[in-house]
C-alpha cells in the first residue's frame, strides 16, 4: 500500500502547479479585458475628480504592480473570495453557494444513473454477443449516444410536459422537476458507458487469464463477475472521474433548457451580461474540478490496477 500512497502524493503534487497555472492564465485574461475596473465601480456618467480616482485605486490596491495584484487576488480566491458581481453587486461566492448544490444534484444523479444502468447493459451485451439482446442494446445505445442533448431535452419537454402533462418542464420546485433534466443528461451518456463497458468486457473475456480461470473449474458467475469484470471495470471507472467535468459542460446546456437554477444558467447569464467576476469564478471552479477529477482518476486506477502503482525501475 505504501506504493499507492506514494503514487497518490506524487499525483497531487503534480496537480497543484496546474491549478496555479490556471490562476495565472485567468489573471492575464482579466488584465487583457477591455475597460477599467474603476469605470465599473462608479455609477455610469458620474464625474469624479482625479484625486478621488487615485484614492479608490489605493483602497482597492489597483496602484500596486501587477505581480502584487496577482498574489493579492490569488490569496483571496484561495479563501473562496471571488470579488463582487458587476451586475448584482453581491459577493460572487454568495451567488455560487446558492447555485452549486443544484448543479451537483443534477450532475451526480445523472452520472450515477448512467453508470448504474450502463454497466449492467454493457456486460449483458458482451455476454450475449452476436445474439438478439446484444443487437438490441447496441442499436439502442448507438441511438442514445448520437442524440444531441439539447434536442433530446426539447423532445422530452414536448412529450412529457406538453402532450402528456405529467412532468414539470422548468425550474426546480419539486423532486419531479429533476426527472426531465436528469433524463436529458443521462440518456446519451448512458449509451456511451454501455458501449465502452461492452468493448472492455469482450476484450477481457478473450484474455488468456480468463481461459485460465475456466481451466481452474471456476463457476461462470465467478469467472465473469470476479475475474473479468474486475479487469474490465478499470477503464470504465477512470472514465467516471475524467467525465465529471465534461458532465458540467453538458449541464450548462441542460440547465438553460430547463431553467434549472444551477451554475450553468448562472454562467450563461453572466456571459451574456458581461459579468466577468462571476464568469472567472465559474471557469476557475471548472478548472479546479478538472484537475481534481483527473488526479482522482489516476489514483483510483492505480488502486484498481496494481501494475500502475509501480514507479519506473521498481520491479
Amino acid at each position, binding site marked *: 500500500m505504501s506504493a499507492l500512497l506514494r503514487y497518490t502524493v506524487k499525483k497531487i503534487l503534480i496537480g497543484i502547479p496546474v491549478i496555479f497555472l490556471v490562476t495565472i492564465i485567468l489573471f492575464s485574461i482579466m488584465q487583457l479585458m477591455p475597460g477599467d475596473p474603476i469605470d465599473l465601480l462608479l455609477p455610469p456618467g458620474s464625474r469624479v475628480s482625479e484625486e478621488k480616482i487615485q484614492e479608490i485605486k489605493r483602497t482597492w490596491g489597483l496602484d500596486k504592480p501587477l505581480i502584487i495584484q496577482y498574489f493579492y487576488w490569488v490569496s483571496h480566491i484561495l479563501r473562496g473570495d471571488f470579488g463582487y458581481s458587476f451586475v448584482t453587486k453581491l459577493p460572487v461566492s454568495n451567488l455560487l453557494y446558492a447555485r452549486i448544490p443544484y448543479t451537483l444534484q443534477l450532475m451526480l444523479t445523472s452520472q450515477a444513473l448512467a453508470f448504474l444502468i450502463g454497466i449492467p447493459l454493457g456486460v449483458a451485451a458482451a455476454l450475449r454477443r452476436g445474439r438478439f439482446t446484444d443487437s438490441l442494446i447496441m442499436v439502442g445505445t448507438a441511438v442514445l449516444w448520437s442524440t444531441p442533448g439539447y434536442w433530446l431535452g426539447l423532445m422530452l419537454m414536448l412529450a412529457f410536459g406538453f402532450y402528456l402533462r405529467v412532468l414539470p418542464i422548468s425550474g426546480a420546485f419539486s423532486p419531479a422537476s429533476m426527472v426531465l433534466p436528469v433524463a436529458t443528461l443521462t440518456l446519451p451518456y448512458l449509451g456511451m458507458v454501455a458501449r465502452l463497458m461492452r468493448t472492455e468486457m469482450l476484450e477481457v473475456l478473450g484474455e*488468456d487469464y480468463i481461459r*485460465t480461470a475456466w481451466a*481452474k*473449474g471456476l*463457476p461462470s458467475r465467478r469467472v465473469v463477475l470476479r475475474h473479468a469484470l*474486475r479487469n474490465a471495470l*478499470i477503464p470504465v471507472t477512470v472514465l467516471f472521474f475524467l467525465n465529471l467535468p465534461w458532465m458540467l459542460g453538458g449541464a450548462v446546456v441542460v440547465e438553460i433548457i430547463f431553467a434549472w437554477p444551477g451554475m450553468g444558467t448562472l454562467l450563461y447569464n453572466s456571459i451574456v451580461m458581461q459579468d466577468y467576476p462571476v464568469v472567472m469564478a465559474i471557469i476557475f471552479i471548472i478548472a479546479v474540478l478538472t484537475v481534481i477529477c483527473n488526479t482522482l482518476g489516476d489514483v483510483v486506477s492505480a488502486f484498481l490496477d496494481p501494475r500502475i502503482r509501480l514507479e519506473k525501475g521498481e520491479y
Partner: protein
Amino acid sequence: MTDPLLRVVDLKTYYRTSAGLVRAVDGVSFEVYKDETFCVVGESGCGKSTLALSIIRLVPYPGEIVGGKIIYRGTDLLKLPESEMRKIRGKEIAMIFQNPMNSLNPVFTIGFQIAEPPVIHFNMDGRSAWRRAVELIGKVRMPDPEVRARNYPHVLSGGMRQRSMIAMMISCEPKLLLADEPTTSVDVTVQAQLLNLLMNIKRERRMSMVLITHNFGLVAEVCNRVAVMYAGKIVELGPVREVFRNPVHPYTRGLMKCLPIGTKRKEQLYVIPGQPPNLIEPPPGCRFHPRCPHAMEKCKKEEPPLTEVEPNHYVACYLRR
C-alpha cells in the same frame, strides 16, 4: 495393460471461420494410462493445442467439438453437462498454458489465484487455502513463499509465473495434467529447470501427463509414448524408444532429421520441403503426400489408416506394406 485413464476416440474439432471450416483436429484417437507421460509433437498449427483444449472442453469460439468421444475414467466428457464438466476442470484434469505472461490475472495476487481452486472444489476456507497456496509456492521452488504469495503477477519473471501456474494447477491434486508447451516461452536456462520441476511433481503425485510440444528433443527425455501429429491427424504413435529407433512415417523421419544433433559445422540444417497444409482444404488422400519424398499414386487418393506395424507402434502410411 490396465484400463486407460483417458481414452480419446475419433475426436473432431472444427473451427467455423468466415474463410471456411478449419479441421484442426480431424479424427484423433489415443489413450493415456496411469502414471504415463504421453507426448504430442507436431509443427505449429497442426492442431495440438486444440486437441488439449478439446479434452477439457475449452475450445475457443468459433471452434466446436463436432464428433468423437473423450472417455475419462469411464465417463464420456463430451456428454457431461457444463456444470459437471466444471467439477472435472482443475480438480481431475488441469491444464498448464503456453504463455505465462498473459495467463495469470493481473489484478489478483498469485496467492489468491493459487488458493482459488481448493476453495471452489473442496469448499476449503480462505485461511487454509491460503496456507496451502504458500506451501505450493514453496513446492514449485520459489524463494520466500510467504512474500511471493502476496505478489501480483507483473512483478514476477516469466519462469516464476510459470511456476505459479504449475502451483495453481496442481492445487487440487488432479490425476491428469495437460501441459501445452509449458516451457516454450521462457529462457532456455529456465526451460530445463521448469521441466525437471514438472516431472518431479508428476512423479511425486503420481499424475498422468499429456505433454504438447514441438520439441522432439524434449520428447526423448521425458515421455513414455509419443504421438506425432500432422495436419489434424496422428500419423505415428508408439513407445518413445520404438519411435526413435525405428521411425516409420516419412514425416516423423523428417522431424528427426531436423534435429541439429550430429549435424556437422557448416552443414545446412535439414528442413522438410514445403509448408504445412491449409486445414480448410487439406490435400486429398494422405495429408503429407505433397511434401513426402516417397509419395505414391495411392497416397494421393486414399487416406492411409493408422495400423500397427510392431506391437503398440502405429503408423498411418502405405510405405511399409
